């Protein structure tokens, strides 16, 4: 009986470890073309949900709700964010990595690392979040006029905001893991080059999207 219990416990532990791996270290198992296809699908889905909730990913780490736009602009934002960081990380990887790595692994895993944006855009669909945002904009003297904020809007909208924030942190962690694994760089060199690349990509994506959106 004790052996059966031990077996079940070990099985449950393995299952938990596998689940944690899939959530926080998915690139140990998935990279290359497979991750690229999953990532592009996630970017497209996040763009579509962003279009429905007027939520823009207007920068590698940016997320803003409110301004309506054409669907293709929402899709383009995700692609620009992904490409900006991937290209900068490719250069960083070439500079700091001692190993020869495949560009398709870095491009694919960086695309897949953006999958939490699907959850962010989905959370932005919550009517309470939309009402909370409209209310805040109205109180700040925006064009929305008088919008009554209900306690449920604050509670659910606040939870949605918290979820979004956690998803951004999770996305950055996935981006770092993807870079670290694909270029085989770790420690201070890996973290330092990643932070610099992230800052550069954020600036590049902002400039590119401002130019694109103001055309």
């Amino acid at each position: 009986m004790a052996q059966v219990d031990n077996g079940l416990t070990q099985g449950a532990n393995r299952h938990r470890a596998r689940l944690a791996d899939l959530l926080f270290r998915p690139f140990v198992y998935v990279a290359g073309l497979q991750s690229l296809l999953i990532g592009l699908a996630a970017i497209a889905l996040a763009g579509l949900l962003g279009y429905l909730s007027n939520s823009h990913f207007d920068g590698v780490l940016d997320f803003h709700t409110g301004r309506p736009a054409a669907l293709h602009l929402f899709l383009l934002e995700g692609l620009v964010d992904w490409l900006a960081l991937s290209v900068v990380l490719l250069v960083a990887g070439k500079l700091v990595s001692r190993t020869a790595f495949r560009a398709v692994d870095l491009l694919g895993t960086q695309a897949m690392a953006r999958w939490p944006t699907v959850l962010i855009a989905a959370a932005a669909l919550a009517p309470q979040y939309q009402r909370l945002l409209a209310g805040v904009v109205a109180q700040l003297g925006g064009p929305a006029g008088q919008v009554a904020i209900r306690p449920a809007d604050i509670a659910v909208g606040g939870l949605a905001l918290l979820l979004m924030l956690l998803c951004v942190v999770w996305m950055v962690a996935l981006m770092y893991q993807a870079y670290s694994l694909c270029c085989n760089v770790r420690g201070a060199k890996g973290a330092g080059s990643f932070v610099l690349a992230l800052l550069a990509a954020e600036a590049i994506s902002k400039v590119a999207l401002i130019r694109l959106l103001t055309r």
Partner: protein
Amino acid sequence: MMSQQSGRLPTKCPSCGAALTVKRMACPDCHTEVEGGFALPILAGLDSDEQDFILKFVGASGSLKEMARLLGVSYPTVRNRLDEVIARLKRAEEKRDGTGG
């Protein structure tokens, strides 16, 4: 006295940590024994899972893609593992040649 051992091959002295050498070898069939001073092959200094990785890698004709499929992990995971094994072998070679730190 003559029995087939299946335990892990010791490569370091349990007392001072220096690399062990082979002093005596024996034929399990005719019990002939050879004595001398023989260095262990570099591969013997690797962990058993590293040796297993090398065997699988050679079995897969050196294909990282095939290794990734066999091990159920991604291509960069296998390549990083190979990088680790290469680094271990280089360190072992340098140590053997007396060029390491």
